[in-house]
């Protein structure tokens, strides 16, 4: 090998590398912070805990219920005996309160850590509708999806911060068990084969959440004394909206927090 040639070649190549290095765009990749350490629950003095209860009312004209068309899957039509079915997001209780509102402690409980309960939260598919429509799970708690329908569903949560998955569940198949690793309000869940089907899953770090039922009330128990921001989330009328309230709880105190929503335009 000719040394002079080698030298010249090395020079040329390093020049090229230098040029390339100069023109390289600077890139910074964000590494999402991930905590993998096992959760050690913070001890809470059960003798001092209080609770937050309340009611969510609906203000204004009721949204016109949207009838759901299930024609393409006769199994779904049959499950309802041919009766019309309406979208759950349009539901308002007879007493003017709102069902399906997810109320949870948004902030104030950061100093505590909680272990996820070992019991799964069950989401059923019944008559090509999700039951319940709105539900909460804790981070790393198992969500167990079962089906009571004689037709195939697919369960497709569409999270922003969590891992997306999409799985079919033919009739008779085993329940699907999945966990969410990060808190997220709210993860919409869809069945693509019955596009009207929708559930909302709230993933929270603490056990302080509740969903309003047919009386529009909620109650969050076991709160240690402190100041909290309580948020209510609803998708009434189809568009999600939230409201926050701050509440301070003394030892063994029970406070009432009420919310009132209008249908989002």
């Amino acid at each position, binding site marked *: *090998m000719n040394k002079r040639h080698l030298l010249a070649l090395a020079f040329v190549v390093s020049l090229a590398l230098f*040029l390339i290095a100069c*023109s390289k765009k600077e890139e910074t990749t964000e590494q999402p912070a991930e905590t993998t350490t096992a959760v050690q629950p913070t001890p809470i003095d059960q003798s001092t805990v209080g609770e937050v209860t309340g009611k969510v009312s609906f203000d204004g004209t009721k949204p016109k219920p949207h009838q759901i068309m299930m024609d393409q899957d006769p199994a779904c039509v049959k499950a309802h005996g041919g009766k019309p079915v309406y979208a759950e997001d349009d539901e308002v209780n007879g007493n003017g309160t709102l069902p399906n509102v997810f109320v949870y402690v948004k902030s104030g409980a950061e100093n505590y850590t909680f272990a996820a309960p070992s019991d799964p939260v069950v989401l059923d598919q019944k008559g090509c509708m999700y039951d319940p429509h709105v539900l909460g799970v804790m981070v790393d708690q198992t969500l167990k999806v079962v089906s009571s329908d004689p037709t195939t569903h697919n369960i497709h949560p569409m999270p922003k911060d969590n891992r997306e998955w999409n799985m079919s569940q033919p009739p008779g198949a085993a329940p699907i068990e999945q966990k969410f690793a990060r808190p997220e309000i709210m993860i919409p869940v869809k069945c693509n084969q019955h596009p009207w089907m929708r559930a909302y899953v709230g993933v929270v770090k603490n056990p302080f959440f509740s969903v309003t039922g047919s009386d529009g009330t909620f109650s969050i128990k076991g709160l240690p004394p402190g100041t909290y921001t309580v948020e209510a989330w609803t998708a009434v009328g189809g568009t999600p909206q939230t409201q926050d309230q701050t509440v301070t709880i003394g030892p063994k105190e029970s406070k009432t927090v009420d919310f009132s929503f209008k249908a989002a335009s």
Partner: protein
Amino acid sequence: MASTVLTPPKHRAPSKSDSIGGNGHGWDGDGFGGGRGEPSPAGRPIPLHAYRMGMYMALAAILMVFAAFTSALVVRRGISNDWVPTALPGLLYLNTVILLASSATLELSRRALTAGRGEAFAQWLYATLVLGLAFIGGQLLAWRELVARGVYLSTNPSSSFFYLLTSAHGIHLLGGIGGLIYLVLRARRIVSAAKQRTIVEIAALYWHFMDGLWIYLLLLLTVRS
């Protein structure tokens, strides 16, 4: 290299010469006994024009890749209402001149080799290599200019095609640069052995093709609808 000698038929010779029908190289006239390359691993040398043929075929494949990109561009531009032409960096024209110059220097190098001027051959080869690298560097600078303007790969179909075509061409040219580096390293042996010159010719073929391809791409990217 005994095996290169044609073994005569052992039985009786063919009565008519045309029953052999000449050699098999119907398309090349002088096939079997043509240039001798280096021995293939199996022993017999691969005729040099096989290398040329191989290069033609490689170029045909490359041509098809770019033909596919071209038709994609033409169709995509034709159907879309989202096509916003990307103003090309002026640097590209300088790069073009550099690349054309590299073809010229490669030709000079080749002539020097034919004339037996080994030193000039190597020098012009260096010049070609430097110009080739300068072209690549220039292309990267042109990309930087676009990025500075906020034009990225996914900004617009026209910019997508710009990055696609320039990088596809650039990668192929880098292959050519690899070839040039190889020639530089072997410059001495090439000068001393006339048989080695085919390598230079094949490298030049590739290089000029890349040159022509670039001109074509530049026209494709600049001509509006």
